[in-house]
């Protein structure tokens, strides 16, 4: 397709809408500048810390004697530290930054009460810092993604309340009757998270449920955090960025409605499939397996919707960083869900239940899908906050390919490793240590992918730092991944 005439900047500006609309948008962007940048900067800081932790965790898993004699560097503490830094430090903060910007834009009103957000970001950082410190010093609770000790959890909850109350307030000040698809997802995420977090904390720590139900609540929490918090923000962001960049409305509102409600209904019922064959009533696991299979409905509708919106515009991914990252993320959502269905089937799960395959699944969801979408949105939003364009297209390209190959390699290694591990584990004529031995080569491969991801994150952090210090390009043209060759392609 000829790149000529493809609107690459502010494409959604209709011809009728005059300068006032653009001015209004610029005002809104300016009002979000401080809070969103605080969230983004913190997130990038946590991303780097989480990446370093991830490297240690990955290498230590196949080199157990590496740095094992120091209590806070032991594998069993660094692993939850890595997970929680990524989940609450990087993903949640970056996701909230994007969500805040999108909320202001879509409510079409300048950001009010920025202090709520600034305080929220401050408390959130404090909560994550205390939580990670607590984990490293031996205060972890042991529940997946709820490892933060309660003193950190309370601070996190206070921080969250500030951000969520801001979101609800903003919604009241919105202009226009129409509520865009992205707003459904964001509003839902902002309302689901506190309920989820409070329910998890209450049922595990305040009035703990008995016995195995703790594990059930734990996985219910972790899975819903993945779907209803990260998934909802990720999908909402994709629903904004894809049409925005290509300058074309979403293919079908009707499909989007179906996709949203089936997503809310079915994905919230998943989670127990992770406990397959465990000491639970069979109906709980079966219900979640059924729900997991039913999530194919939102996957199909959302995927179809994005695909039809993009139809004919795929070549734009050659140029637009935002589009490339976002489409990669949106496609990964489909892959993530398909893998989720596959590994939840009982026959497959009996092989993969206790193997590295479940790590592959989490990374597909949190990284290949969510993080890539968020990277895309940051490439779109940050220039609008700072008034400078990204400095080097080549760095963005490097970031993309290192991330894409990194997460691809990691997923393959962990899935293949999981299969090998599971096959030897389920063969009782082999010694158990064989199953561990069999997965080690794949874990070394995973460490290799970790190096790629580390490179990618450092490049991104460097580039983001340049932007932050005002060292971006002064230009009205966004930074493209490749030079737009054809004449007249220079967007006005």
């Amino acid at each position, binding site marked *: 397709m000829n790149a000529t005439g493809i609107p690459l900047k502010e494409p959604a500006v209709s011809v009728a809408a005059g300068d006032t609309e653009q001015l209004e948008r610029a005002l809104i962007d300016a009002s979000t500048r401080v809070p969103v940048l605080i969230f983004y900067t913190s997130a990038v800081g946590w991303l780097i810390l989480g990446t370093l932790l991830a490297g240690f965790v990955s290498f*230590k*898993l*196949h080199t*157990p*004697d590496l740095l*094992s*004699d120091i209590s806070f560097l*032991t*594998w*069993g*503490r660094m*692993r*939850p530290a890595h997970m929680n830094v990524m989940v609450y430090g990087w993903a949640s903060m970056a996701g909230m930054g994007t969500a805040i910007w999108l909320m202001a834009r879509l409510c079409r009103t300048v950001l009010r009460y920025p202090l709520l957000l600034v305080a929220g970001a401050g408390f959130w950082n404090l909560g994550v810092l205390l939580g990670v410190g607590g984990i490293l010093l*031996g*205060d972890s*609770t*042991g*529940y*997946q993604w709820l490892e933060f000790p309660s003193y950190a959890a309370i601070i996190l909850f206070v921080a969250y309340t500030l951000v969520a109350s801001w979101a609800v307030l903003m919604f009241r000040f919105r202009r226009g009757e*129409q*509520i865009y698809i992205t707003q*459904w997802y964001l*509003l839902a995420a902002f*309302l*689901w998270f506190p309920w989820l977090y409070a*329910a998890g904390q209450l*049922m595990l720590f305040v009035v703990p*449920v*008995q*016995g*195995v*139900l*703790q594990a*059930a609540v734990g996985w219910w929490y972790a899975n819903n955090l993945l779907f*209803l918090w990260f998934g909802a923000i990720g999908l909402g962001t994709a629903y904004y960025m894809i049409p925005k960049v290509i300058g074309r409305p979403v293919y079908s509102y009707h499909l989007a409605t179906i996709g949203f*409600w089936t997503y809310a*209904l079915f994905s*919230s*019922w998943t989670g127990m499939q*992770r*406990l397959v*064959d*465990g*000491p*639970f*009533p069979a109906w709980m696991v079966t*219900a979640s397996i059924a729900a997991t299979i039913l999530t194919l409905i939102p996957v199909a509708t959302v995927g179809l919707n994005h695909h039809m919106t993009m139809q004919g515009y795929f070549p734009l991914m050659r140029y637009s960083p935002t589009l490339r990252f976002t489409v990669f993320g949106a496609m990964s959502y489909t892959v993530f869900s398909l893998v989720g269905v596959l590994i939840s089937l009982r026959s497959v799960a*009996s092989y993969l*239940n*206790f193997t590295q395959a*479940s*790590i592959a699944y989490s990374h597909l969801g949190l990284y290949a899908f969510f993080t890539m979408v968020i990277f895309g949105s940051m490439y779109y939003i940050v220039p609008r906050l700072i008034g400078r364009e990204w400095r080097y297209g080549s760095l963005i390209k490097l970031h993309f390919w290192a991330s894409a190959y990194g997460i691809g390699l990691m997923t393959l290694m962990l899935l293949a490793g999981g299969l090998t591990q599971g096959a030897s*584990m*389920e063969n*009782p004529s*082999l*010694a*158990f*240590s064989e199953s561990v*031995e069999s997965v080690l080569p794949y874990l070394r491969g995973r460490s290799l992918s970790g190096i790629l991801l580390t490179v990618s994150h450092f490049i991104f952090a460097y580039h983001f730092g340049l932007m932050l210090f005002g060292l971006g390009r002064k230009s009205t043209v966004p930074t493209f991944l490749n030079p737009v060759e054809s004449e007249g392609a220079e967007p006005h």
Partner: protein
Amino acid sequence: MKGLAPLFLGIFGTFAFSWVGLTVIPNWQIGHLNPQSDEEGTDIYPMPQSGMVTRGARVYAANGCNYCHSEQVRAAYAGADIERKWGDRRSAPRDYIFERPVLLGKMRMGQDLANIGARAPKEEESPSPTGGASPAPQGAAASPGAVASAKAASPPPGTSPLPATSPGAIASKPPTSPGPASPPPSKSPATAAAGGTSPAGAASPPAAGPPWPEQTAGLPPMYSAAWHHVHLYSPRSINLDSNMPSYRFLYETRRISDARSSDALQLTGSDAPPEGWEIVPTYDAKCLVAYMMALNQSHPLKEVRSTGASAAASPAASPPPAPGGQPAK
């Protein structure tokens, strides 16, 4: 979409549906289980745990053991857990009613530990927690003596194998006197267990079969408290293939003041402390081992079929699985 009310209602409705369905209803169904007992109200299982075991569970969670070790045995149709002799029966909700946190685990980079306590040599097996305070630590105290006798072949400096008839007896008198190394009496169960022949050592690994590592000569009887300490301190001294990191930070190296502590680890080779020093477990390490020694689901449950009748009779014994309970291989 127009109108906020349907949106809000939908958002709350879907989430409430999931919350009620996956946490509230299960809580109503299995959230208030009681221990089981026989008709006379005796033989109660499971029992509340001692303080050291509870603390040990927190140490276990804090150091992330649950990221590599599961604590659940799947039914025979669902996996090879029972064939691997990780348990005689599948785990059931009732097994966990006193556990907090419940650490079922989602990964097996290491063995399943649901029944690790049941594999301990019989003398050391933690008695039912009715005894109150810290049953397992007694085992821990007993073990160094047992270790000493088992290790007679290559006594580390400063060790004093005590002639005693059983580790239990050793437990009552701390091994203090630095005497000349003498071979232990052959009837010592610790030694016998090391040989894997004595009935007293029946809880140690079955004579044949790969599922568990073999008893290494010169080490404490497998799955005894002393063995756990050596394993935690230096996993590869026990199993060369082990992928477990060592947990040396749970141990303290200190100068021997008067006499060797009864808790001191029996280490050889490069792990051994220099002359005049000893390595002793911290309180956390003792709690961790107490917790592991208390992990035992071998007591039969009415709602779950065990694979062998004898397994039900004697938790410590691990007979070959009865053919009836096993799927044909």
